[in-house]
């Protein structure tokens, strides 16, 4: 995954996930829900990611696991862009 992709995801997370900590203090695999993201904030995060990356998360991807870390989000975006399947457990 590119640093550019992770950087853009971190920008969107910082703006929309309403974390209780600075996203820059989190690792790429840190749990965003554990860092204070509520279920409703995850909706905003999903919609903001769709705007930022010009894509739409299909119903099968509406799981907590898809949005629970920067790495998981990057994997899902990669999968939607036809890159390698994500490794966070959801099935195509």
């Amino acid at each position: 995954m590119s640093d550019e992709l992770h950087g853009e995801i971190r920008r969107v997370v910082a703006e929309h996930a309403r974390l209780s900590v600075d996203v820059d203090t989190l690792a790429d695999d840190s749990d965003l829900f554990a860092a204070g993201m509520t279920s409703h904030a995850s909706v905003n995060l999903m919609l903001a990611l769709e705007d930022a990356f010009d894509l739409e998360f299909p119903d099968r991807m509406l799981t907590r696991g898809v949005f629970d870390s920067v790495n998981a989000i990057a994997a899902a975006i990669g999968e939607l862009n036809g890159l390698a399947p994500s490794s966070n457990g959801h099935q195509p």
Partner: protein
Amino acid sequence: MPLRIGIDLVSVASIEESIRNHAASYLRRVFTDVELTDCTAADGQPDASRLAARFAVKEAALKVLRQGDEAIPWREIGVRSDRHGRPSVELAGAAEASARRQGYDTLDVSLTHEGPFAAAVVVAHSEEVSR
């Protein structure tokens, strides 16, 4: 089949923010057509307090239904009110399949909104066993 209970609390301001930032795409992805109709104020604008209560119902129901990291879209859990204003939960698609698979045929709900917050409690049970 044991009862299962879910609860959720939602900030009305968070709903207002989502409507402000994402407008129709937010409303379309999260709420059913019935909910959007029921939660439209007289001036034609979405009623954030009532929508917050309905989002709380969805999350409370997910806490009851979701096994592991199952994909259940928010629109597949909806609230409908009868002519007396009594709410009930309507399930569709993956949400309905999940309830059926777990032996639940009824989700009862109680919801409220006051000031900056809305809350809901959902109880899943089987009518057959409850009689």
